[in-house]
């Protein structure tokens, strides 16, 4: 049995937050799906709300403070990421985007990601496909095919069965990607350590000079 680490990124602002609620549902379903496939999971949740000022500071100072760096390390070091954002002005929230802006663009290469979004109206339902998926394509992460969008009506009874079905499907897809993988990032997708001894000699760099 392999233990997988799952980092959950929630950009919800309220308390209680429907974004966090969706993140928790996705997480529980993923843990369950992994167990069904014989793997264990540890979960670490990163609430971006608590990092709102840290992220603004990072933009101006160029580095993450200790608290934000710990969360970045959690996400970058995880076997999989569950990323959920509220929809603001027809896209992911600025807070959500800023978090992925300050992470190194190569840090999530090959990381399986489950995408989720919440909004007040179902008219935003393609935000996962039109906004989130391109962001993670740029990061060369591996988003699973099913993104989970939850509008207000999904929490209000009638739609909840349908929501549960999408949550389970997405969680199953994420578990399928993880199972069979060795724990941790495949070496080929891990960003090169800039402080490793160089493979190209300095003489090589100077050739012809």
């Amino acid at each position: 049995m392999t233990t997988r680490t799952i980092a959950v990124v929630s950009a919800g602002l309220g308390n209680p937050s429907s974004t966090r609620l969706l993140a928790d549902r996705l997480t529980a379903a993923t843990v369950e799906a992994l167990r069904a496939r014989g793997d264990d999971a540890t979960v670490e949740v990163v609430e971006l709300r608590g990092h709102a000022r840290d992220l603004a500071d990072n933009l101006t100072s160029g580095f993450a403070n200790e608290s934000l760096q710990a969360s970045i390390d959690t996400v970058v070091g995880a076997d999989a990421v569950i990323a959920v954002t509220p929809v603001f002005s027809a896209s992911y929230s600025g807070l959500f985007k800023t978090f992925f802006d300050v992470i190194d663009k190569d840090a999530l290469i090959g990381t399986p990601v489950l995408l989720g979004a919440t909004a007040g109206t179902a008219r935003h339902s393609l935000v996962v496909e039109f906004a989130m998926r391109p962001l993670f394509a740029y990061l060369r992460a591996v988003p699973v095919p099913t993104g989970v969008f939850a509008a207000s009506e999904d929490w209000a009874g009638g739609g909840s069965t349908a929501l549960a079905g999408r949550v389970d499907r997405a969680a199953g897809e994420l578990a399928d990607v993880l199972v069979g993988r060795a724990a941790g990032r495949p070496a080929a997708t891990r960003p090169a350590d800039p402080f490793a001894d160089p493979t190209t000699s300095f003489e090589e760099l100077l050739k012809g000079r």
Partner: protein
Amino acid sequence: MQFGIFTVGDVTPDPTTGRAPTEAERLKSMIAIALKAEEVGLDVFAQGQHHNPPFVVSSPTTTLGYIAAKTEKIVLSTSTTLITTTDPVKIAEDFATLQHVADGRVDLMMGRGNTGPVYPWFGKDIRDGIPLAVENYQLLRRLWREDVVDWEGQFRTPLQGFTSTPRPLDGVPPFVWHGSIRSPQIAEQAAYYGDGFFHNHIFWPPEHTQRMVEFYRRRFEHYGHGSADQAIVGLGGQVFMRKNSQDAVREFRPYFDAAPVYGGGPSLEEFSTQTPLTVGSPEQVIERTLGFRDYVGDYQRQLFLVDHAGLPLKTVLEQLDILGEEVVPVLRREFAALKPAHVPDAPTHASLVAAAGGAKDVTVHAPADDVTGRTAEVAQA
């Protein structure tokens, strides 16, 4: 251990008065600051190079040459010399000239330190930053060490039979530091040549500095220049001091809050925790600075940034008094007591001349063909 100051030469309005110095005032202030640095017993004055407002430091050897004439002991350096966009031929000539007029009191810090828009003004592309630093520096070394250079590279016109004049003073080129905040390639370059490595150290958490210095030390040893703890390391630092730390914080805060390099981000308190910025009493500065050694090891040069963000000249001169009277003497003593004997001091012109077996005149006395320089080659052969 050498102590000094480094300036970036910014023209910034004083946020407490709203008044900005003129370029003339700022240049004269920098000179006054350099003279004061010598007066209070500092070892190094280093000035930056920029080619865009709000800076006044596009011609470093002009100001450094003037300062050389007005001083006797202080080493004149740069922070940094733009090896990416400045023609290495011009650097070779300018700094060899400065060596002669300053009787050898010259070294250099190489840096890429240019923002994107600056590169095209000099016909370069910021994406070539590292290759430019590699190629230009290699050419610069040859221009200082070989009387006649045939050279062809990617970024500048080829040289055929070129002699850079004047030749370095006493046949010894200025010692070179390589400054970089986060590019391992530059630390590698410094290690490859056995040159010094300087980490700006300010504006960033100490972990960045530590990783870069460790890497440089490891590679310095790899290239056979000595053991890792014998590598030549310099650090920046930024301080603002008053007798009482509360006074220092109160006085510096408006400058911190308005400065483009800090403003709008973490608070002064947060920045002081997260980076080496120290605003407080001389004792606090001493303690903090001694602590740098804990994560970079025994190092050779400590430069402080004291004159930016619109601080008035009078205040900066007061800072230099405090540095010279209360801080540096203690740091000198403490660092010297901690340093093992096998760790070298920072190279100076005198030590480099001694290591080269004494001074020799390398003037190229060529028959007059000042068009091609070819005759120098003939004369040599």
